């Protein structure tokens, strides 16, 4: 197959000493970011992005994506040892990981977590390897209407799949779109929503939003919870690793389910966090001894970790092939690509072959390197977490300020970062989802351009979105997802009535009555 050859060339690109070194640095930085509260995949990559501008793009994206893998791995360490999810997607890992650590099985839990993360990511990379070129080829035929439809689908699936209330999801998303519209309108040259402030001419950069919302906002939340790190001892030696690996094949079904859920949720932007919860829930529902979940069942670690990593990795597929990121971190990586002059989308696979395949090859290598690194360095990371929060918190705020400043070398951005931090604190506590806000801010201009072009083509009627089978079915699917909260609420109601009717039928033997609710 042609793709295999391309992939081999990619390995040749990724396997230079320099790139391997960047990979290593990236993983180490990533785990550090994942372990520290207030720094995560999205804002960690955002903060480090300006430092990579002087590097060649392939090395830079390899390092940045490795930071992402590292952060995914790192989240598991804090969940298991300290019962503190370093990342939102590792919340589900705490349910069984921490009890295991309390029972003295921390090493087993961490080996299981890292290995399942690796498996999840590996399957997702396989999916990317074989699916991405096909999607890209397919997407070459896309016109503006199709692009808008895919973006519409992205946003609708947020509303439909979100665990947060739909009204709040819509509100957060629309805030992102509104913020994206601020500044100079490139089509007409008019100023939008600047109200005479020159600082607003450039509009809001989503990197600033990411650093504020996920960085400072998270720090404020952590302060409120009053973190006291009381952790279990984290020791891993070769024996524990091998013992655990012997056990793992037994849980292949759980792994497979996690991979499938993860890949699906990553490609259609549900994101790693809901994927991990969904996978945990499924594993519990399917398990024979349901009661052991929450008390240190190893499956309760395998399921969420596999899904979170599969989702986190496969979120890069729509980012690379369509230019539509499936998660905030993928959005930040997309921002990086744009800065290096690489326009993600189907053409990338034609014009910048060596870059795309180098990146995909680095995903394979990065995950193997990552697994080895985290297995060998766990005690260090646990030690970092014992540093008191009154030292870590101000340092992280400083890092956030530096990160916000370096994006455009602008003090106004640092002020905006503070504002976003406060917004993030309130939004998180009130269950407004942050991911749609960030994605809308990233995709706002692109979505608007696609919308305008389609409207121009059609002369202003929305009929163009149903003008052929492809765009029509995407739009219809999007609308179904948009209305999904209503549908599922209706189904719930119907089920409840049915159950009420059944129990009524049990009490009164006449079947005739059961039909009437």
């Amino acid at each position, binding site marked *: 197959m042609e793709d295999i050859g391309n992939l081999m060339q990619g390995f040749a690109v990724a396997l230079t000493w320099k790139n391997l070194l960047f990979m290593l640095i990236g993983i180490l930085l990533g785990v550090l970011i994942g372990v520290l509260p207030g720094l995560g995949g999205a804002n960690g990559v955002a903060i480090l992005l*300006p*430092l990579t501008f*002087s590097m060649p793009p392939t090395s830079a994206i390899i390092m940045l994506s490795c930071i992402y893998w590292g952060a995914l791995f790192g989240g598991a360490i804090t969940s298991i040892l300290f019962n503190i999810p370093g990342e939102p997607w590792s919340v589900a890992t705490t349910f069984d990981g921490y009890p295991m650590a309390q029972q003295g099985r921390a090493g087993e839990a961490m080996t299981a977590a890292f290995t399942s993360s690796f498996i999840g990511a590996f399957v997702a990379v396989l999916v990317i390897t074989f699916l991405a070129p096909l999607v890209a080829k397919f997407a070459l035929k896309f016109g503006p209407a199709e692009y808008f439809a895919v973006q519409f689908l992205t946003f609708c699936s947020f509303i439909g799949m979100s665990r947060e*209330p739909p*009204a*709040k999801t*819509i*509100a957060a998303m*629309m*805030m992102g*779109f*509104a913020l994206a*519209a601020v500044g100079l*309108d490139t*089509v*007409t040259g*008019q100023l*939008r*929503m600047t*109200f005479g402030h020159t600082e607003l001419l450039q509009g809001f950069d989503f990197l600033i939003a990411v650093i504020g919302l996920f960085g*400072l906002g998270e*720090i*404020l939340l952590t*302060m*409120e*919870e*009053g973190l006291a790190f009381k952790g279990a001892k984290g020791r891993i030696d070769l024996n524990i690793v091998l013992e655990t690996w012997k056990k793992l094949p037994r849980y292949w079904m759980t792994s497979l389910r996690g991979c499938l859920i993860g890949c699906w949720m990553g490609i259609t932007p549900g994101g790693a966090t809901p994927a991990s919860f969904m996978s945990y829930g499924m594993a519990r529902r399917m398990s024979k001894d349901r009661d052991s979940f929450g008390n240190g069942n190893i499956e309760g670690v395998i399921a969420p970790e596999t899904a979170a990593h599969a989702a986190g990795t496969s979120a890069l597929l729509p980012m690379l092939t369509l230019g539509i990121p499936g998660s905030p971190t993928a959005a930040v990586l997309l921002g990086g690509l744009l800065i290096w002059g690489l326009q993600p989308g189907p053409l990338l696979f034609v014009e910048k072959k060596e870059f795309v395949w180098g990146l995909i090859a680095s995903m394979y290598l990065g995950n193997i390197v990552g697994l080895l690194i985290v297995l060998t360095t766990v005690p260090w990371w646990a030690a970092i977490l014992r540093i*008191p929060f*009154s*030292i870590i*918190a*101000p*340092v992280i*705020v*400083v890092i956030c*300020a*530096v990160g916000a*400043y*370096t994006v455009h*070398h602008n*003090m106004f951005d*640092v*002020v905006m970062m*503070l504002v976003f*931090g*406060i917004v993030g*604190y*309130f*939004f998180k*506590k*009130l269950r*407004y989802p942050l991911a749609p806000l960030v994605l809308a801010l990233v995709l706002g201009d692109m979505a*608007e351009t696609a*919308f*305008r072009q389609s*409207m*121009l083509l059609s002369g*202003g009627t929305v009929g163009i979105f149903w003008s052929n089978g492809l765009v029509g079915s995407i739009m219809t699917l999007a609308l179904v997802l948009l209305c999904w909260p209503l549908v599922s609420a209706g189904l719930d109601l119907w089920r409840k009535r049915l159950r009420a009717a059944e129990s009524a039928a049990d009490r009164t033997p006449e079947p005739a009555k059961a039909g009437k609710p």
Partner: protein
Amino acid sequence: MSDNAQGGTAAGGGGLATRWVELVVALLIVAGGAVVVTDSLRLGAKWGSDGPEAGYFPFLVGSALLLSGGWIVANVLWRWRKLASSVFVEWSALKPVLMMLLPSIAYVVLIKFIGLYVASAIFIGAFMVWRGKYGALPTASVALGVPVALFLLFEIWFLVPLPKGPLEHLIGY
């Protein structure tokens, strides 16, 4: 924001009442929607001679903001009684949040005047002494170590300039 929200003290008992925070945030969203809609109408949200005008798409976005904000407001008011017992943040927990937030704001203001490096040293040092009750040696090592590391990393290795103040000018940067 917090001025309005403090009305919920009596209802919440030991903290800021969730329903007031919910209401204020939702009303702010409605206000934001109103701003977007007005500005789009100023720009023209209709069909121009050469296609959609500049406010066409923002108008839709603003309307959606208005609607979703209004939906949340209605929802909060609908559950007003039910939400009475829910506390957004207890006063005792709000204190550490403010103790993080206010110094951070002061820090950003300080950057403007004395540059990022010195401001960071003061911020980290003050926080460690005040919140962590650390002695001179650990405080000095972190408070000076972080800015020095940042300086080496940004100014010297990566050649990315950060905001500087009088001290840096003194040593020739």
